[in-house]
């Protein structure tokens, strides 16, 4: 079985969010870049778990990004990917990124493609479904558990207000979230071997973007907290009722 894991690069969860050039650019100075947590903790680690149970599985990683994405790709290789493909393009347009990944995926006919549930910077939550449409394959989103039974996958996914378990034949695309696997830390052996694992760079296909980012905006600053005395919590209830009209 061949698995493709989509890996994106995002700012660390504690990164300061600030914009420059009249709110048109995200300030990257001092920002630490990580593998998008959903891609790393859930999609990649789940693929590694499947490979541990069945060593005939190969895991490819794909990233659409510039050369500055290579450190996070190497980290993903250190965790346990077999080889990686970097599609040399920078884009914020989900359609463009998904088309690139689908083009690469078509060459290898993966049985299974894993993405994260969403990127923590753009919060698109759309690239996995778009890849599925480009490949005309089924898509299961928000998976919380995954196992295989021959040529069938058994997947539990979040639905609004509950869970659903589905059986579905390969090939398919799955977006992964909490529950799928547990975060791991790369070991020394993994880090050493990652240096020599193949990281292929390919040029993007020509395809238009359908959207573009015009500007950013920070939310308005809070006016400041109104503190109520701990001896008088009823006052808080009164304020919530009369002033905030929230209860």
């Amino acid at each position: 079985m061949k698995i493709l894991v989509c890996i994106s690069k995002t700012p660390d969860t504690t990164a300061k969010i600030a914009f420059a050039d009249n709110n048109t650019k995200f300030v990257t100075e001092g920002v630490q870049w990580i593998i998008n947590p959903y891609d790393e903790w859930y999609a990649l680690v789940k693929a590694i778990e499947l490979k541990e149970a069945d060593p005939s599985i190969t895991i490819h990683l794909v990233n659409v990004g510039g050369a500055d994405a290579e450190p996070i790709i190497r980290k993903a290789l250190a965790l346990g990917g077999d080889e990686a493909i970097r599609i040399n393009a920078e884009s914020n347009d989900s359609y463009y990124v998904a088309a690139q990944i689908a083009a690469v995926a078509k060459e290898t006919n993966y049985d299974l493609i894993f993405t994260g549930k969403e990127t923590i910077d753009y919060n698109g939550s759309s690239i996995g479904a778009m890849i599925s449409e480009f490949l005309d394959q089924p898509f299961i989103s928000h998976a919380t558990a995954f196992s295989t039974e021959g040529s069938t996958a058994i997947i539990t996914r979040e639905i609004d207000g509950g869970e659903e378990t589905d059986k579905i034949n390969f090939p398919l695309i799955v977006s992964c979230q909490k529950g799928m696997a547990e975060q791991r830390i790369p070991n020394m052996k993994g880090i050493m071997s990652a240096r020599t694992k193949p990281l292929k760079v390919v040029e993007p296909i020509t395809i238009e973007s359908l959207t573009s980012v015009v500007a950013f905006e920070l939310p308005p600053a809070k006016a400041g907290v109104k503190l109520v005395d701990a001896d008088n919590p009823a006052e808080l209830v009164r304020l919530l009722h009369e002033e905030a009209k929230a209860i």
Partner: protein
Amino acid sequence: MSILVFIDQSEGQIKKASYEAAYYGAQVASLLGTEAHAIVLGEAKEDLSILGNYGIKKVHHFSKSELNQFDAQVYSAILSDACKSLNTSVVIFSNNTIGKAVAPRLSVKLKAGLVSGAVALPELSNGFVVKKSVFSGKAFTYVSIQSNIKIISLNSNAFSIVKSTEIAEVVNFESAFPNTHINVVSTNKVTGEVPLAEADIVISGGRGLKGPENWGLVTELATLLGAATACSRPVADIHWRPHHEHVGQTGLAIAPNLYFAIGISGAIQHLAGVNRSKTIVVINKDPEAPFFKAADYGIVGDAFEVMPKIIDAVKKLKSQS
């Protein structure tokens, strides 16, 4: 040209998020000088003409039992046909688990640019620009859609509804659709609770509550206020509370009217999922807790002393009204 709103009732009834999408779609229609239509797939469990209350002029209903079960591949094929036959220019979804699975597929089928997680009406002064939430609620971005057909999925609670007494016309819709590849083995719905993603009020607890046995302080207040319950990530990780209650950067992002945080420090990753809430109340014994900087109201105090008094005061308020 018209606006088409996808109404999701596949899980039993029309959701609040779909009414919001309907109302939003009607507003987009009036901006563009056209009509808002809605589409419903699967057998209806409710009177669909009430979508008129939210500004929908016409409901296209594809009533077929095979469509009661959601499958993004099937739904997007039908929606694509519908958009073509109705000459749709803008399609509206709710940005929930269903919208997130269908809208991107439709985007590829129609080569229609998608903005997911919209929080405001499109701005038309310079193209077609939609404001969306990014960086897990820590910022917004304005995204321009360049394609002819445009798709927007709307964040829940981002847009308040004004209802009317209008009634929509309901017409049948039919199109061919592919067979589903998905075989549903089981569904497990959390019943009797207010769904967190749609709740107006959310009462949330953190590690400061010391153990699951103390959650009565959270659930009692939630029951009194008709609220949903939530928790911080470590609380879900150590299994004090179920995973679906975990809010924050790596959990659910919510935007209720009132978010009530008890014994939660307010780490940046937690705030990322809740800072779009309209009013934030923080109960924490540490005056230096970072959450107070993001709060509207707060009490510096011990939750075990403060909460019972708050619950009493709410009971009193409820008995008066």
